[in-house]
């Protein structure tokens, strides 16, 4: 009897975990923030996101040339091909300012994420 229960425990645990994970993902829809790259500029340059929340950045590169989204503060780095879109997940983050830039055109492509208390 005890042995049977022990054998079933992993199955019960997996089912339980799947339910928890499924409900977690179903309930917590990640907010999406859209950023454009145009003429080697980030538009908008400043984006505001709530603290302690994971956010999906949808970056749309309207330039024909590639750009690399880079931020030391956010610990993010990603090449975005010309005329293409890219997704980068950031956070959850504590309140503060997190600059980012385009590594290929850093003179103009500058921006920051401002994390504010909700």
């Amino acid at each position, binding site marked *: 009897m005890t042995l049977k229960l022990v054998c079933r425990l992993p199955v019960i645990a997996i089912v339980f975990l799947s339910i928890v994970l499924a409900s977690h993902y179903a309930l917590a829809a990640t907010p999406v923030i859209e950023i454009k790259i145009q003429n080697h500029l980030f538009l908008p340059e400043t984006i505001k996101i709530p603290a302690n929340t994971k956010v999906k950045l949808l970056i749309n590169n309207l330039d024909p040339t590639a750009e690399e989204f880079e931020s030391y503060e956010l610990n993010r780095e990603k*090449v975005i091909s010309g005329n293409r879109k890219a997704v*980068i997940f950031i956070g959850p983050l504590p309140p503060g300012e997190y600059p980012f830039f385009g590594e290929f055109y850093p003179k103009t492509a500058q921006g920051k994420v401002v994390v504010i208390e909700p």
Partner: protein
Amino acid sequence: MFLNSVVLVLQEALEAALLISVLLVFSKHYQIKPRWVLVSIGLGSMGALIFALNMALVSEWFDYVGQEVINALIQFSILFLLGLLVLSLSINNPFIKPNTNVIKSNLWIMVCMILLVCLAITREGSEIFIYIGGVINQPSYAQPTLAGSGIGAGIGISAGVLIYYGLLGVTRNKVTAISLSLLSLVGGNMASQAVLLLTQADWLPYSQILWDSSAQIPENSVIGHLLYALIGYEATPSLFQFSAYLGGISLILIFWLLGKLIDVPSTMALDAENTGY
């Protein structure tokens, strides 16, 4: 544009230069002809070009996080290959086990080295190709970018040469320990970067930031860039990243120790007997 391209190319070149020079030191000690480097640089450059040309397509895979997933896959493959290489280097260490079947084991070691360098260059080089490819069409940017890239690559290669001769100058007892430590740092770096990419892609959950050393050594400082390229320095590493870093280092060291435990001379001798050597 000029300085920017120097930094960008140098950072990518340094990572590859460190790996190549350490592998060259090993291949010298194992009496493997260094021609394999040319083969792997050629194959790696081709890989980088193909990867760069298809980056737009790859990026759209897995709901726009294909770039992270494929890069993480390459990094885990590098870690795995480093493990295999270290294992075979350890099993066939000519300093400790001089009777091993050199030709047979060296072929395997060479294949591992070629694949390693090829993958490393594919990863590092694709970014350079995309960067130069975009800038080259703009006449005002083209010249400073190409000059900067050339200088960046030059400094990277020089650093590699320095590391190579520096390691050759070290006594035999110490060279293995130092080269092995460097390879294990590369392994740790790969694991940590892969975990970071998978977090960025939301394939791995967020984990807390362990410390913030950006005030002491900013990542965008010269030392920060250098440390990033050589040991994978991050000013704000997460718990998962740091664990992966330690895991990567341990994996390489465990493979080395494992190789020491395997008593190959006796099996090789048996093998030689069977084949009539």
